[in-house]
């Protein structure tokens, strides 16, 4: 008895959650119910029906449903229900045989191939490919020609023929799981291969195996019935589902009814297996996925009134005015009452940690709130028109008024088209020029973002570019419509620091050349300092401070800004601990009524429990802190 007990205890809830997830799904419960019922009914068939499958009553043939024969009788007056149930036995047996072979081969080979790798992997993969290419049904027919009526041989063969699919899936998944860092950690921890397999790999594969087994079982049921239908299954007079359909097809003229009892159990069983497979997969995905932010449990209240929804007049100078923007995702607000302006040619930074709503704000401006999100309040005025009011305005503005550059350059371009074609499409779209002119202009754009040999780059596909080049290409794409505002969402986060410097330099020079404004989303104070004129600091979906960058860095007027600035290792004193902000950003749905930072704030007092409005302690800067006076007085930041 070692820590194994810990392990065992630990493993139970995970498996339990899969089962629980399954039982929460109505489809899965119905399916399980049917399969269970079917199994019980077939096993206990003699108890369910008084008629034997071979008992004939020549005086009541093809009766249709009656009191004595619930589903009616066949041509020889045999009870259909009884024949269905007894026939179900051969179906279940066939499923069991095929699935056992399928799993035995599939799991063993898939695991071995994926986990052990090497020559064995090569051998297994090749063999699997070969078997995969076999025309399955034809092989089955040949086998049945050799062993007439021997369904066992057919089903074992079918298990073999089906297994490459499972091998491939399990191999791929094993490879993937094997690369998970926790497996590496387990290796470092000195766990043996069997231990790692048992603790980390197999549990991850269980649901896949169940799903595949269920789907395969569904196919087996169909095939087994098909063979019965072709007269290649269980020899008459033994009942089989396929044979019943064949019998029914012989008497369609006399009694089409028989088609239903003969076929429906088959259909329902296969569907049930399919539903079960889907449900297991869904439940597994749910069990393994990181938690989705839980929707607010509390009854939704009107937005805090004290904080007020901003209804100020837009700054007529502003290129873009965001006014009281509130975005909800799945009914939970993730951005609340955000307001700021961007002037012509200005660079505005939006700073904050992840989960503070920076990206959602920028996407909200473009009307691209992800998933089931929506803008639930507020306005976005661009050059005087309200983008939230009309989708057509928004569509017109996108690309030509406001352009967008995303965080991951490698996935920001369509991987299936060359860079040039995508750029040309954007150019053609915005300028309406011909294809040829667009191509030329596309190369110009690539030259403008300082890509060496722009023509060659235009001919490449995105995967042939380095990260820096891809980001330049993405910027070129954004420039295609000659936008007045560029929204850059963490444009350098994914890049190496030297490449970041180049991209930042490029943005700066482009801005100088074109006079476009930039809305820069970032979490990096250095980037803010490097590029921005003003900055908006966001915390937990709100704007907490807004100021000119020089003032913000030298004299932050919100404790969060101050804390974040201090936590930056740049400012660290060697040998001394970094100043930290305790705790973490509360997720949407867990926001307190009052100051959202209060729980992590050294200055917090009872006063912070009430909603805090934005105040303007100095001209052109705002903050959301009840203790702003103290901060102003202290006049210090670090």
């Amino acid at each position, binding site marked *: 008895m070692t820590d194994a007990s810990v392990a065992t205890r630990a493993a139970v*809830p995970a498996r339990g959650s899969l089962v629980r997830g399954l039982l929460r799904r109505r489809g899965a419960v119905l399916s399980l119910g049917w399969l269970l019922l079917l199994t019980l009914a077939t096993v206990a068939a003699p108890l369910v029906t008084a008629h034997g499958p071979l008992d004939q009553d020549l005086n009541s043939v093809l009766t249709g449903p009656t009191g004595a024969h619930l589903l009616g009788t066949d041509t020889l007056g045999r009870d259909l229900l009884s024949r269905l149930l007894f026939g179900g036995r051969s179906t279940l047996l066939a499923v069991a045989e095929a699935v056992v072979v399928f799993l035995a081969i599939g799991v063993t080979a898939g695991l071995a191939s994926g986990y052990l790798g090497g020559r064995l992997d090569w051998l297994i993969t090749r063999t699997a490919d070969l078997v995969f290419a076999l025309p399955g049904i034809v092989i089955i027919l040949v086998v049945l020609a050799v062993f007439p009526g021997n369904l066992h041989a057919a089903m074992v063969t079918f298990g073999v023929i089906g297994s490459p699919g499972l091998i491939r899936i399990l191999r791929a998944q094993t490879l993937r799981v094997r690369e998970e860092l926790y497996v590496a950690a387990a290796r470092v921890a000195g766990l043996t291969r069997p231990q790692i397999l048992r603790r980390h790999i197999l549990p991850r594969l269980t649901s896949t195996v169940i799903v595949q087994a269920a789907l395969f079982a569904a196919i087996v049921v169909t095939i087994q019935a098909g063979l019965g239908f072709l007269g290649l299954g269980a020899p008459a007079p033994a009942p089989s589902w396929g044979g019943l359909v064949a019998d029914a097809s012989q008497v369609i003229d006399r009694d089409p009814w028989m088609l239903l009892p003969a076929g429906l159990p088959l259909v329902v069983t296969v569907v049930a297996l399919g539903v079960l497979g889907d449900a297991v997969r869904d439940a597994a995905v749910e069990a393994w996925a990181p938690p989705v932010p839980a929707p607010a449990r509390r009854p939704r209240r009107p937005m805090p009134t004290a904080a007020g929804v901003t209804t100020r007049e837009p700054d007529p100078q502003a290129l873009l005015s965001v006014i009281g923007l509130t975005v909800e995702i799945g009914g939970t607000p993730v951005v609340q009452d955000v307001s700021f302006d961007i002037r012509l040619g200005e660079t505005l930074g939006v700073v904050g940690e992840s989960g503070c709503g920076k990206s959602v704000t920028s996407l909200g401006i473009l009307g691209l709130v992800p998933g089931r999100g929506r803008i639930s309040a507020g306005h976005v005025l661009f050059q005087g028109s309200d983008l939230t009011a009309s989708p057509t305005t928004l569509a017109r503005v996108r690309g030509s008024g406001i352009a967008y550059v995303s965080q991951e350059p490698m996935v920001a371009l369509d991987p299936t088209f060359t860079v040039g074609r995508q750029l040309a499409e954007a150019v053609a779209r915005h300028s309406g020029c011909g294809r040829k002119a667009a191509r030329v202009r596309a190369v110009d754009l690539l030259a403008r973002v300082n890509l060496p040999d722009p023509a060659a780059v235009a001919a490449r596909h995105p995967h042939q570019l380095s990260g820096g080049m891809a980001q330049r290409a993405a910027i070129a794409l954004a420039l295609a419509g000659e936008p007045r505002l560029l929204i850059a969402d963490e444009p350098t986060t994914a890049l190496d620091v030297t490449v970041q410097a180049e991209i930042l330099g490029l943005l700066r020079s482009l801005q100088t050349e074109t006079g476009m404004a930039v809305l820069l989303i970032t979490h990096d104070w250095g980037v803010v300092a490097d590029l921005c004129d003003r900055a908006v600091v966001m915390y937990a979906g709100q704007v907490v401070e807004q100021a000119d960058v020089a003032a913000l860095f030298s004299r932050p007027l919100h404790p969060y800004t101050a804390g974040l600035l201090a936590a930056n290792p740049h400012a660290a004193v060697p040998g001394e601990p970094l100043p930290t902000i305790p705790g973490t950003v509360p997720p949407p749905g867990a926001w307190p009524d009052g100051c959202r930072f209060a729980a992590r704030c050294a200055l917090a007092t009872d006063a912070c429990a009430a909603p805090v409005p934005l105040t303007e302690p100095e001209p052109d800067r705002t903050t959301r802190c009840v203790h702003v006076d103290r901060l102003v007085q202290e006049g210090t930041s670090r």
Partner: protein
Amino acid sequence: MSAASPEPAASCVGTRPTEDRPAALLDIRELTVEFRQGRRTPPLRAVDGVSLSVAPGETLGLVGESGSGKSTIGRAVLGLTPVRSGTIRFEDADITRATAKVRRELSARLQVVFQDPYSSLNPARTIGSTLAEPLLVQGRLTGRQSADRVAEMLGRVGLPPDTADRYPAQFSGGQRQRIAIARALMPGPRLVICDEPVSALDLSVQAQVMNLLAELQEALQLSYLFVAHDLPVVRHLSHRILVLYRGQVMETGPAEALYARPVHPYTRMLIAAVPEPDPGTQRSRRAARRGGPLSAGPLSAGPPSAGTAAVTDRGCAFAARCVHALDICRHDRPLLLPVGAPDRSGPVTRSAACHRASELLAQP
């Protein structure tokens, strides 16, 4: 119980390496690691003749950009990546190609913290089970003992004891990284490979974890091989820094000295590229840079793998991007040689692999 209580190395008396350099805990000589890239293309040399050592209680920072091979070195030490040539010695034993059995024994003294706090914990196992995992190998502990040990370690990294019964999904990135650190510390290791342990974390949480790492080092006399791409982070946590470029060591030296007065042009470029979180400073740096571009050479052409694959044994790996490059730089690979006089932090040797190291040292 011995494995459960970490013992500082007897020879190590402080958190800083002693001046006369006690026997290194980890000693790597001429390490080369290659990855096969299919049948046609030549193998990718991810690590190219790197030598380094980590003293007891010391933190050695490995910095470099993506593709520099910094993480590969850590994985090679851990036995997660096969080594092409060179030796890795740990506690004076050659572990370059240690058998699984040796690795199992080693696991008590050599541990790891990975970058990704999400993939590094098995979502299906409770934190308790994950933390107890390294103890499985020792197999001497009862369930009770190991549960106690788990609780103790959770306390150490600042998490409540009930953490043990919960699942990774219930924790934030920072908390998970604390858990990952706790797992690494469970068997009482002497050296922890920290592979970008804070780069996935938000600023405020990053600071917390960095402080935790520093505290633990002090308390448990740990050595860290600290792999990161963020220079300020590395500087703060490391005693010495090793700068890597395309699998080769460009420069090495004490953290503060190297950061304050970088010698190698690549180090300089790296440091210069990090924007200062101060608008004023940043403005002047930018102005200064306007005279000479940050990188004079062509931009990295082609995807990173294509670029790094083209490592030749001739010439300096950085020559193509170096503003100071001479002809010799393109033909002769510079050796990693000591540079300069002892600076104020002590008579610690600094080295750089640059033909013009002394010139550059003279004119910062």
